[in-house]
C-alpha cells in the first residue's frame, strides 16, 4: 500500500487493522502562509490545559504581568505551568467556560492586555545541548509549560525521561496529521521545518534514542520535502523522514508506531515498554523554542477552516485567545456556519459558543457548513452488519461493546476490551444505523472509572473499619492481659513478702521509714524544708507586706460573684 510520492523511502511500512480513507479537505486552509493572530483585549488562561494536577496561581487580581511570565506553577510531577501570553493586568482568577466536551467552567486567570506585548526576562538560551546536564534541559522544558501538542496535552517533561526499565531505541515523531481538515502541523513543517528538527534533536538527546523516525502522511508532499531537507541541513544522523499512506487514524500514537516499526504497544501500556517514545512535531518545535530561545509555550499554530469560515487559514495564536477573536481574524462566519467544532471532524467536539479560549492542545477550529456535517437523523437499532468491526483500528468488536454499554453491563463491555478503544470515530462514521457508538464507549469508560473509584473508596473504608476493629480487639486483649497479670501478682505477693501478716501495713511502715531516712539525710546536709510552719523572718515579713497591700487595694467586702470571678481569674 505505497502511494506515489515525491520522496522514495526504503523504510518498510506495516499496516494496522481497519481505518478509513476519508476526503482530506486540507487544501482549503493551506492556501496562504501562517499569519499572526492579534493580541486580544482579554486573555483567558485556564489553569488546567494539560493532563495531571491543576496549576497553582502565582498572581492575584491587580498584578501587572509581562509576556512569558509564569503566572501559575505546576503542582506535583505530572503538571505544567501556565504563562502570560501577553503583557497586561490580571483582572481576576475565576471560573470561565473552557473548551471541554462537558461544556463546564474551570478556574482561569484573566489578563486585560495592555497592547505593549512586552516580554519578561527570559532564561538564557541553551546553545549546545550536548554540553548541558539533561536534568537542566528537562527543567527548562517543564518550566516552559510544554505539553503534548497533538491533542493529549500530557506534560512533555515527564515523557522525556529515558525509560528506567527499558532503554529507548526509537524516537517517533508524529507528523501524520491524519484527521481531515487539520493542517497546522503541515504548515508548521512547511514553514518551520528547521525549528521542528532542532527540537527533535533535543528530544532525542533527552530520551537517549538510537534512531529517530519522522512519520508524515503522503498527502503532505511539501512538508515531507521541507523536513527531509531540514534533517539533511542539521545533519541529524539515524533520522529518517518516512512517507506513510494517508489512512485515518495513522496519526494515532499506537497506529503510527505500528505503521513505522511493526510493533504494537501493549494494551494499557505506554510506548516506552517497547522502547519507543512518540512526540508530535508541534511539541518538538515548542521544545526548540524553550531550549534554544528560552521562550515558554504561549502560542501555537491553529487551523481555522470549514465552509462556515470566510477565509480558511492557519494562524499563530496566543494561548488564551477567545475563539470569537480568531474567527474574526479569519474573515468571520459565512452564512453556511452551522456547527463550531474544536478539533477535527472525527474526534473533535462541538463548542456551544465562541467565547471560550483556545488552549495549548487546540489544533483546529472547524466551522462546518450544513453540507459538510449533515444531521444523520435519529439512531436506528444496530443490525449487526459488522461494518464497525471492519474499520476498527484496534480490532475490537464495536457492535458487541455497544450492546453491553447500552445494557450498562460494564463488566462485559470491559471484557470486550473497552479500554483499548482510542475513540477515533471510525465505527460511528460507517454505522448504517447512525448510532453514536463512541459516545457509548466514552460513557462506559466514565462509568467504569466511577465504579472503580467507588470500589476503591469502599475498599478503603472497609480496610479502615477492619483495622479499627483489630485495634480495639488488641487493646481489649492487652487490657485483659494486664489485669490478669496484676491479679496474679497480687495473689503471689503475700507469699513473697512472707513475714508480715498485713501487706498494707507493711507498705505504710516501709514508706514512713523511707520518709524518716530522707529527713535525716537532709538534716545532715543542713537543708531546712521551706514550708509555712517553719518560716524564716525574712519570709514572714514578705508575707505580711503582701497581706497589707491586698487589704488596701480591696473594698471592705466584695460581692460574692465578683469574688468568684476573681478566683476564676486567678485559677486561669
Amino acid at each position, binding site marked *: 500500500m505505497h502511494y506515489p510520492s515525491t520522496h522514495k523511502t526504503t523504510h518498510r511500512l506495516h499496516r*494496522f*487493522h481497519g481505518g478509513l480513507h*476519508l476526503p482530506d479537505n486540507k487544501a482549503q486552509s493551506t492556501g496562504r502562509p501562517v499569519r499572526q493572530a492579534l493580541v486580544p483585549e482579554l486573555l483567558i488562561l485556564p489553569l488546567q490545559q494539560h493532563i495531571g494536577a491543576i496549576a497553582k496561581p502565582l498572581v492575584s487580581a491587580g498584578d501587572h504581568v509581562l509576556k512569558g511570565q509564569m503566572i501559575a506553577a505546576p503542582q506535583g510531577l505530572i503538571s505544567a505551568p501556565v504563562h502570560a501570553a501577553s503583557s497586561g493586568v490580571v483582572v481576576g482568577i475565576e471560573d470561565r467556560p473552557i473548551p471541554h466536551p462537558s*461544556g463546564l467552567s474551570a478556574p482561569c486567570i484573566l489578563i486585560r492586555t495592555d497592547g505593549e506585548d512586552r516580554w519578561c526576562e527570559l532564561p538564557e538560551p541553551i546553545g549546545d545541548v550536548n554540553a548541558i546536564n539533561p536534568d537542566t534541559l528537562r527543567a527548562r522544558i517543564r518550566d516552559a509549560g510544554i505539553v503534548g501538542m497533538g491533542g493529549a496535552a500530557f506534560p512533555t517533561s515527564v515523557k522525556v525521561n529515558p525509560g528506567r526499565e527499558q532503554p529507548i531505541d526509537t524516537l517517533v515523531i508524529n507528523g501524520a496529521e491524519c484527521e*481531515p481538515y487539520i493542517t497546522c502541523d503541515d504548515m508548521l513543517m512547511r514553514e518551520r521545518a528547521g525549528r521542528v528538527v532542532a527540537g527533535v534533536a533535543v528530544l532525542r538527546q533527552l530520551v537517549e534514542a538510537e534512531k529517530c523516525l519522522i512519520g508524515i502522511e503522503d498527502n503532505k508532499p511539501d512538508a515531507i520535502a521541507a523536513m527531509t531537507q531540514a534533517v539533511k541541513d542539521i545533519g541529524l544522523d539515524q533520522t529518517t523522514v518516512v512517507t506513510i499512506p494517508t489512512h485515518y487514524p495513522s496519526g494515532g500514537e*499506537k497506529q503510527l508506531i*505500528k505503521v513505522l516499526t511493526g510493533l*504494537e*504497544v*501493549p*494494551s494499557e*501500556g505506554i510506548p516506552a515498554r517497547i522502547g519507543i517514545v512518540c512526540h508530535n512535531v508541534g511539541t518538538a518545535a515548542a521544545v526548540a523554542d524553550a531550549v534554544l530561545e528560552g521562550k515558554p509555550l504561549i502560542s501555537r499554530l491553529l487551523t481555522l477552516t470549514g465552509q462556515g469560515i470566510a477565509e480558511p487559514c492557519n494562524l499563530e495564536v496566543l494561548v488564551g485567545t477567545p475563539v*470569537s477573536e480568531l474567527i474574526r481574524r479569519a474573515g468571520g*462566519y459565512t452564512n453556511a*456556519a*452551522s*456547527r463550531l*467544532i474544536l478539533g477535527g*471532524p*472525527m*474526534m*473533535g*467536539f*462541538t*463548542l*456551544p*459558543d*465562541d467565547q471560550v479560549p483556545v488552549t495549548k492542545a487546540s489544533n483546529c477550529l*472547524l466551522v*462546518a457548513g450544513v453540507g*459538510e*456535517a449533515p444531521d444523520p437523523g435519529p439512531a*436506528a*437499532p*444496530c*443490525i*449487526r*452488519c*459488522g*461494518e464497525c*468491526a*471492519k474499520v476498527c483500528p*484496534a*480490532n*475490537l*468488536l464495536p*457492535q458487541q461493546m455497544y450492546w453491553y454499554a447500552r445494557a450498562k453491563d460494564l463488566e462485559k463491555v470491559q471484557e*470486550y*476490551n473497552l479500554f*483499548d478503544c482510542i475513540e477515533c*470515530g471510525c465505527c*460511528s*462514521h*460507517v*454505522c*448504517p*444505523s*447512525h448510532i*453514536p457508538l*463512541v459516545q457509548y464507549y466514552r460513557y462506559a469508560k466514565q462509568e467504569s472509572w466511577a465504579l472503580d473509584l467507588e470500589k476503591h473508596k469502599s475498599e478503603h473504608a472497609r480496610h479502615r473499619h477492619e483495622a479499627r476493629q483489630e485495634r480495639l480487639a488488641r487493646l481489649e486483649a492487652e487490657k485483659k492481659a494486664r489485669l490478669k497479670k496484676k491479679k496474679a501478682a497480687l495473689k503471689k505477693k503475700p507469699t513473697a513478702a512472707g513475714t508480715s501478716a498485713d501487706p498494707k501495713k507493711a507498705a505504710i511502715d516501709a514508706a514512713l521509714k523511707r520518709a524518716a531516712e530522707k529527713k535525716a539525710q537532709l538534716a545532715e546536709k543542713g537543708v531546712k524544708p521551706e514550708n509555712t510552719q517553719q518560716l524564716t523572718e525574712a519570709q514572714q515579713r514578705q508575707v505580711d507586706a503582701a497581706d497589707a497591700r491586698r487589704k488596701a487595694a480591696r473594698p471592705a467586702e466584695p460581692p460574692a460573684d465578683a469574688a468568684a470571678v476573681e478566683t476564676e481569674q486567678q485559677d486561669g
Partner: protein
Amino acid sequence: MRFPTVTSPHTERPNSVTWTMLWVIIALVPGSIAMIWYFGWGILINMLLASLVAVAGEAAVLKLRSRPVMPAVGDLSAVVTALLFALAVPPLLPWWLTVLGVGFAIIVVKHMYGGIGYNPFNPAMAGYVLLLISYPVEMTAWLPPRMINEQVLGLGQTLSVIFTGTLPAGLDWDAITMATPLDTMRTQLDLNIMISEIRLSPLWGDFGGMGWEWVGNWFLLGGLFLLYKRVISWHIPVAMLVVLLSIAMLFHALDQETHPFGLFHIFSGGTLLGAFFIATDPVSACTTRKGQLIYGACIGVLIFVIRTWGGYPDAVAFAVLLMNMAAPTIDYYTQPRVFGHGP
C-alpha cells in the same frame, strides 16, 4: 454566536440501513426476473403480495408498540424479508398462506423479539419453515419451467388460481404442478433408481434442474454485485458454497449412482439465493470474520446432510435457522485478537 452541541463524528455518513436494504433489493432483481420468466406471473404476484403484507404488518405492530412508524418502515427491511419469502415459496401458493407466512415472519419472528436488529432468527426462513411444516402439499407444488411446461398460465389465470383457488377449465393440480428437481431426485433415489437413469428425464439441465440452474446463475450475479458494493463480505457465501461443493464432490466420487455431482447441489433449490441473500442476513448471522467462516461452513454441511439423509428435499431454510441458534456462541469464541494483546 451560539451553536448546537452535537456528538462526533462531524461527517457525512456513507452508509444507511435503507441503502443497505435497497442494494439487496436491487441485487435480487436479475434472479427475480429469471424466476418470473421460468415460473410465471405467480412469482411476481407473490412478491407484491408479500411486500404489501410485510409493510402493513410492520406498520401495524409498530403502532401497537407505540413506536414511530415511518423511519422503521422506511428502512425497507420488511420488504427484503417479504421478497426473500416470496422467492422461496411455490408460484401458485394460495394467497392466505403467503399472508400467514409473511405475517408470522414480521409479527412473531421479527417484532416479538424487538424488531429489526433484535431477531435471533431469519424472519423469511422462519415464515417459510412454518408453512413447509404445516402445509407440505401446497409448499411442494411447484411448476415446471417454461421450456417443458405445456400449460403456461396467463396473468389473469394465475391471479384467479392464487386468490380463488379455481384452476382454468379442464386443468387439475396434478397436470399443472410438478415437484422441484431436488424433490424429484430425492424421491427417485429413495425408489433405488440410479442417477444415470434419473437424469434421462427432460427435467434436467447442465448442472441442476432445467431453468433452476439459470435462476441460480442470476442470483449468483446479484450476490457478486453485493460483494462488489461491500454490502456483504465474502466469508459466509464462500465458506458455505465451498464446503457444500467439497462434501458433495467427495460423496459423488465415492458413489456416483446414489450421490448427485457437486454442482447439482450448488445450482439446485435455494443454495445460491441462500448463500448470498439469506445466510448473509447480518442480524441473525455471525459478525466476527472467523465466526462467519464457521457459520457458513456449518450451513454448507447441514444443507448436504438434510438433503441427503433428512426428511425434506431442500435444506437451506433449516440449515440457516439451526445456525442462527449457534451464531452468538460462535461469535463469542471467535473474537479477533485486539491490538496490543498477545496472540
